[in-house]
């Protein structure tokens, strides 16, 4: 291959020391961010994304309201310091608009929008650090933020990027690998195994596609476990915080009875 870096060396290791099917380290923070109804910070290796969800709420523009369901409005903002080379991208940047449109079309069938007619759900995605797998981080972060906002969804949506280096498939690519290797992003719903999104901007041999597609589906299930663990942890923390005070309430009631 003509690339300077070795994507996969003879020992089977990638440039950052991972094996072929190893995912990068993931951290999830579901703490409250400002006034948002739900928010999540998700990190895949060195890629970090903050997603804030507002709503369902009254839309800003009446013309945007849909009479029988909620309108999902996605705005993506890429911080100028998120890449190695400092670069400011405007709101009208085609590439950023496309990510927003992709997220919107991925979540429209998953969110139960029909429950909230004439309303708007605002999703604000802020990319804090980029190192490959931007779309997967945005989709995973949006899933978590929507769940954190208490918005009804059919299932989680878990996204993973996969690529093929000559004949060997790999998962969760970094920027370095994305530049050299044809790659696919697959978003799937783990309960049913349905696929919410498949997107590819490079050319990939049709024989290789099936394998990488199946692998990405399995990786999605692994991610689902992590995301579910974070959601359950957050829910239990909040339930316990509320529960620890209930004994106080009961005491108060009894005193009032006397």
């Amino acid at each position, binding site marked *: 291959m003509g690339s300077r870096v070795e994507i996969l060396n003879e020992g089977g290791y990638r440039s*950052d*020391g*991972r*094996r072929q*099917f*190893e*995912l*990068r*380290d993931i*951290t*999830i*923070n*579901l*703490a*409250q961010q400002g006034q948002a*109804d739900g928010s999540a910070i998700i*990190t895949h*290796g060195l890629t970090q994304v903050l997603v804030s969800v507002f*709503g*369902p*709420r*009254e839309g800003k523009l009446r013309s945007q309201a849909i009479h029988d369901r909620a309108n999902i409005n996605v705005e993506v903002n890429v911080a100028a310091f998120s890449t190695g080379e400092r670069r400011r991208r405007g709101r009208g940047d085609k590439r950023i608009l496309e990510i927003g449109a992709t997220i919107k079309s991925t979540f429209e069938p998953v969110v139960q929008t029909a429950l*909230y*007619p*004439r*309303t708007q759900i605002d999703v604000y995605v802020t990319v804090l650090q980029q190192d490959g797998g931007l779309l997967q981080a945005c989709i995973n972060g949006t899933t978590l933020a929507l*769940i954190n906002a*208490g918005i009804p*969804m*059919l*299932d*989680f949506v878990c996204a993973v990027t996969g690529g093929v280096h000559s004949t060997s498939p790999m998962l969760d690519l970094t920027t370095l690998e994305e530049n050299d290797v044809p790659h696919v992003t697959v978003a799937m719903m*783990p*309960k049913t195994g349905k696929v919410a999104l498949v997107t590819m901007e490079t050319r990939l041999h049709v024989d290789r596609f099936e394998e990488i597609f199946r*692998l990405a589906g*399995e*990786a999605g299930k*692994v991610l689902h*476990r*992590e995301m*579910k*663990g974070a*959601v*359950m*942890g*957050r*829910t*239990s*923390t909040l*339930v*316990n*915080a509320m*529960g*620890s005070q*209930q*004994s*106080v*309430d009961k*005491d*108060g009631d009894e005193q009032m009875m006397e």
Partner: protein
Amino acid sequence: MTISFSSFPTTNDYSGYNQPHHPHNVSEDVYMDLDEGHNQPDGSRPTWPGEVLTSSQDYMRGHGTYVDDEEVIASVAGTIERVNKLVTVRAIRSRYNAEVGDLVVGRITEVQPRRWKVDANGRQDAVLMLSSVNLPGGVQRRKLESDELQMRNFFEEGDLLVAEVQGFFSDGAMSLHTRSLRYGKLRNGQLVTAPPILVRRLKTHFIVLPCGVDLILGLNGYIWVSKHVKASEQEGEEGFDAEGVYSNVNDDIDETTRTAISRVSNIVRILASHFVPLTDTLLTEAYDWTVDQESGVKNLLTEDFGDALVTSLVSRS
């Protein structure tokens, strides 16, 4: 072939995510053994979107669930509640779900023909009809065309008010009314917001604290903290006048009352950030505790102090 996580060094230490990371090669699902072990003290157990709860043959689906392939499946993260054959999931965090008769605090966002639009933390703006407010000059007065023309004399954009949920429109928007002398425009105080789930239904949502502060706990999570008004000063049926009810001018508030209002507001903020349900007894206890600590009002918002306050309140129970 196995998919696993790399041990990439992570520098972040997030408190919101305390779960241990997966060891390599764990194949079965570690969170599936929830049936007995993880039960909460009050019998409700947490769930997540996509979890199969039960069969739709035996149970009815309630809010926060959907049916697919004869299975009842959760659609929100929260706690499962079961009443006879009805299974519902109550989201742990969400916007306000209104019910008729609820007391809410809201803010006017728009003035429209014969109605105001009110932001009440709901899914859509609430509607306050001109016919559901008390007009100056007697409770029984009929509304006139001139009232429609001077609606901004009653409520303007940005005004805060306390009202009751009267009903719902077909699209789910709530309709409010202020046809009681206890409801109407708010002044002499400060608005604090909390997650709506923390405000429980109480015997009364108008709370008078011993420190000279009135509190209105709106069920929508909007909480109004204001100077205490003596019951005799509130206008009676006879003395109902526009000046008093629709006035935009604050009364004189002395230094000690201002401090007390700020103190109560900060306590509400602390309790809300620690996800502690708000009750009158708890707020009184918390107020006394902070006064005992002899700290300034602004120190209340430091993290250490908030943690100490919540710990002491929990341990007291």
